[in-house]
Each structure stands twice: as structure tokens, then as C-alpha cells.
């Protein structure tokens, strides 16, 4: 693949030696592992660039996307869950329930396309390609465009970047919000049946305080648990969303690498994904521990 079709056997041999493919498989893996520990993930077969540079330049995009998606998704799921429970005897609950079921049956990459169709192409209210308007120049400092624009004191550019991220992160958020709402609703339901809620009510506490302080604190725990399960889904979702919205994150990197059979890049990106998932899992576990010391570590 890297050689012209008329390459000689000699050239092939030399290339194999250069790529280390003449070593036994286990040794190849160990060499890769050793280099990786030294921060060297190898060179991209396709472009010859350092894989770590490629990843480092792409990672901020994905991280910003994931952060925004979690913020929007958790916020929406949380609020709609509480609202649905608060107004559980009114039509509000049913309408939220129906929206929920609908949101659940649309995979996130379809949400991405739908949102792009409606708001980007149909109503033309939101940009839907790339990270920032090509006309705006932003100095690179951290690589996180959202932070960079703020640091350089450029609110217009910040809003521009934010609006570029809005649709893709909304699409991802729509994938996590519905399940979150369901879990929250059902755990609130369980908690309201418990003894301590009854005694709190007997003490004459107002309904609002009952819900927001006493019940919610305990209801959040299963929801948090779910978040860690969904972390993988969310991060996996960025892959397609980035591709659809032309964001140059590690998802686009991965898809391009797969299409080019660029193995060093594929390996490294897969590893980064695994690390991201593990980190989110750790974070939710830690949060759970903070909120409920009983849970233990």
C-alpha cells in the first residue's frame, strides 16, 4: 500500500524493516508499548506526522463537545425528570413522556442530521460546519477554542464558536437526556414511597422543600450511576457527530484513519477513547462518593 505497484521485493523488505514488521508479533506489541510509555505513539503511515501531535490537536475539539453535551444533556434530563415528577398528575407529565419516547428511538447521529437539516439548512439560524467562521482569526493558546476566544478577550468570536458547537452538542445531549429523565423519575417515585419522606411530610415541610432537598439528594445517585454507563455511549457518539458537523476532533481522525488503514493512528485513538471513558467513570464514582459517603469507594 505504501509502495508503488511495481516495487521490488528488496524495497518491500526494507519497508518492512523500517516499520518493524519483520519482528515477531509480541515483540512488535512490546515495542509499541515501550514507545507509548515514552510518549511516542509512532508516525502516521499516511501523512508521516507524529500521531501524538495529531491527537493533541484534535482532542480539544472532542473534549469541548463532550463537556457541552454533558452539561446540556444532564441539565435537560435532570430538569425534565423533576418537572415530570412534580407535575405527575397533569398532562405535563404525559407530554414529557411522549417526547422522551421519541427522543429515545432516534440515534444520536440521526439527531445530528435532523438538527442540521432543520436549524442549519432549513431555518438558517445556526452554523453547522466546522469549529469557527473562517473569517474570524483566533490566536491558538490552549487549543480549546472556547477558552482561547475568552482569553484573547473576543466575545464575538466566543459566541461564534459556541454557536458552532451548539447543534452537535445538542444532538449528543438528546441521546443522554431521555434515559436520565426516566431513571430520575422512577427513583423519585421510589423515594416518595419511603418512610422518611412520610415523616418529613408529617413534620409539615413544604412540598417544594420535600422534593428539592429531601428526595432529590437521594434520587440523584442512581442517575449518576447511569451517567457512567452512558459515558461510553456519549463518547462513541462524538465519532459520527464530528464527522457530520465537520469538526476536526479525534472522531474524524479515527474515521479517516480507518478509511486510510492508518494503523498507528487507529491504535492510538482507540486508546485515547478508552482513557476518556475510564476517566468519566472515575469522575462519576468520585462524585457519587461525595454526594453519598455511604456508597463507599
Amino acid at each position, binding site marked *: 500500500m505504501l509502495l508503488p505497484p511495481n516495487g521490488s521485493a528488496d524495497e518491500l523488505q526494507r519497508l518492512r524493516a523500517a516499520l518493524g514488521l519483520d519482528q515477531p508479533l509480541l515483540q512488535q506489541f512490546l515495542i509499541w508499548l515501550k514507545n507509548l510509555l515514552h510518549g511516542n505513539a509512532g508516525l502516521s503511515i499516511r501523512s508521516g506526522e507524529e500521531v501524538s501531535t495529531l491527537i493533541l490537536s484534535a482532542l480539544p475539539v472532542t473534549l469541548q463537545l463532550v463537556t457541552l453535551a454533558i452539561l446540556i444533556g444532564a441539565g435537560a434530563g435532570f430538569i425534565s425528570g423533576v418537572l415530570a415528577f412534580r407535575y405527575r398528575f397533569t398532562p405535563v407529565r404525559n407530554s414529557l413522556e411522549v417526547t422522551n*419516547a*421519541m427522543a*429515545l*428511538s*432516534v*440515534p444520536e*447521529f*440521526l439527531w445530528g*442530521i*435532523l438538527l442540521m*437539516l432543520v436549524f442549519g*439548512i*432549513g431555518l438558517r439560524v445556526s452554523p453547522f460546519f466546522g469549529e469557527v467562521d473562517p473569517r474570524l482569526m483566533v490566536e491558538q493558546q490552549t487549543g480549546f477554542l472556547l477558552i482561547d476566544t475568552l482569553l484573547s478577550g473576543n466575545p464575538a468570536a466566543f459566541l461564534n464558536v459556541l454557536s458552532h458547537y451548539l447543534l452537535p452538542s445538542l444532538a449528543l445531549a438528546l441521546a443522554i437526556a431521555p*434515559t436520565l429523565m*426516566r*431513571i430520575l423519575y*422512577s427513583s423519585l417515585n421510589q423515594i416518595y414511597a419511603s418512610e422518611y419522606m412520610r415523616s418529613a411530610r408529617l413534620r409539615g415541610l413544604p412540598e417544594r422543600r420535600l422534593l428539592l432537598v429531601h428526595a432529590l439528594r437521594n434520587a440523584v445517585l442512581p442517575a449518576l450511576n447511569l451517567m457512567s*454507563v452512558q459515558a*461510553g*455511549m456519549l*463518547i*462513541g*457518539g462524538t*465519532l*459520527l457527530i464530528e*464527522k*457530520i458537523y465537520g469538526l476536526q476532533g479525534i472522531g474524524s481522525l*479515527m*474515521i479517516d484513519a*480507518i*478509511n486510510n*488503514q492508518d494503523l498507528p493512528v*487507529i491504535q492510538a*485513538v*482507540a486508546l485515547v*477513547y*478508552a482513557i476518556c*471513558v*475510564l476517566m468519566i467513570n472515575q469522575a462519576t464514582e468520585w462524585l457519587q462518593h461525595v454526594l453519598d459517603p455511604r456508597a463507599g469507594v
Partner: protein
Amino acid sequence: MTISISMNGISTTLRRAGWRLLLGGGIYITLFIVALLAPQLAPHAADTQHLEQTLLPPFWMDGGHTDYLLGTDVLGRDILSQLIYGARVTAIVVVLAPLGAALTGSCLGLMAGYLRGWTEKVIMTLVEIWMAFPSVVLAMLLMVALMPGFTSVILAIILVDWTRFCRVIRGEVITWRDRDFVKAARLSGASHLSVMVSDLLPVVRPTLMVLITLEMATAIMAESILSFVGMSVGPDTPSWGAMIARSLNTVFSAPWQLVPPMAAIVITIFAAMMLGTGLRFSRREQTATGDEVLV
């Protein structure tokens, strides 16, 4: 508790679960019929190009043609026919992938939950490593390793999703394994294998059924994602995800092309969820384990 569902059981299930099961089941029966009869139903062959009639809108819009009810794509291929042939891929995936994942996952889950000890440790460590990779990423990695093709798509989905079955079934088995009926079976001389197969498997069957319906939805999503990025079946086999990817290229001139394949995917996923909810409601009165399967 017997493995076979008696006729009586089916009718009471239907009565109780009502419209959800009927709706979901109905949609799937339609899907299978369409997939089976694709050559008879489709007005055109899926890959016939009509290069003088490209990007036609659906027939009710201006410039549409009743020969191409849902319009044509950029190569002048009939969208309705592609949709009908694409149902074949979905129909096969939706049956084989969940069954394979259920088989692998619940075997390992039963073993882990019942045998405990080092068997459980090995299996659950494997599950944890597996779950560190986002499923989409893992599926794509597997597709790279397996070479593109229809069998590898199904295999990839199975290899990615068995962990869900394994985790849930193990959890359920752990709550049952110390019950008296298991001890009684052991005392009366049943082997470990026989206890797992004929005592524990029937107990977890309801959960397994719900998981399988959820997995149907996941399998459809996974296949559409893989074919969307061009890693599923080859370009000569029509599939819904690939249709979406292709129509994105011409989204400005012909946005309506996106609607049929997207609707098809959403409807089949919705139907799988209806089956799942229906099953869960129908067994709510039978078991007290409730909704923990919502993973």
C-alpha cells in the same frame, strides 16, 4: 416454570401488554415480509441507474414522477426500491445479532453468576476491559480487523454487545443462586450444568427477553452507524445507513432524500422499544425485580 411458553401464556400476555407488543410486532412482521418479498415489491432494481433522471423529488412534489414514488438519488436510482432492498440487511441483522449476543453473553453471565470464584473474576475482568471502549469505536476496530462484509457486521455487533447480557444476567443469577430451589436441585443430584440450564435459565428468561428487544434496537443503530461511515456491507448492497451517508452529499439540492431512510431506521428502533416496554409491562405483575434492566 417451563421454557416453552404455553398458548395460554401468550394470550394472557397479549391481553395485558396490549397495544405496545402488537404495534412493535406488527412493524417487525411488516419488515420481514418486505425484506422477503423485496424483488416482488420493489418497482425497480435497487442498483439500476437512470442517469437522465437524477435527484427527482417524491411524486407529490413539483417535478416528481409517479415512476419513482419517493424520488431518485444522485445516480438516478429509485429511493423506494433501495429502501425496500435495504430492509433485507436490517431484517437479518435484527435477528442474528441479538441472538448471537444473547447466547454469548448469557452463557458467560450464567457461568459468572453461578460458579463465582475465579471463573467470575476472569469473565468480569474481560467485561470491564471490553466496556472501556465506546461501543462504536470497538465495532469499528473490529470491522478493521475482520475485513468488511455482511458476516463481519453481525459478528462485530455480537462481539461488542455481549457484555450487556453478561452483566445483567450475572447480576440476576447472583440474586437467585442461593434460593432453595437451586439447593434442592443440587441435593437431588443435578450437575452444575443442569442447574444452570434447567433451573436458572428459565428464571432469567423474562429479563433475557427484554434485553434481546433492547439489543434489537442497538443492533439496528450499530448497523446503520457502520454503514453510514461505509464500513458495513459493500456499496452494491443497499442499506439504510449508506443511503443516509450518500444523500448527505447532496443535502442542499435534495434534502428530502434523507427522510425515507431516516424514518425507516427510527421506526424500526421505535418498534423494538415498544416490544421491550410491552414485555416489561406484561411481566411486571409476575416478578418483583422491576426495572433494573434499564441499561
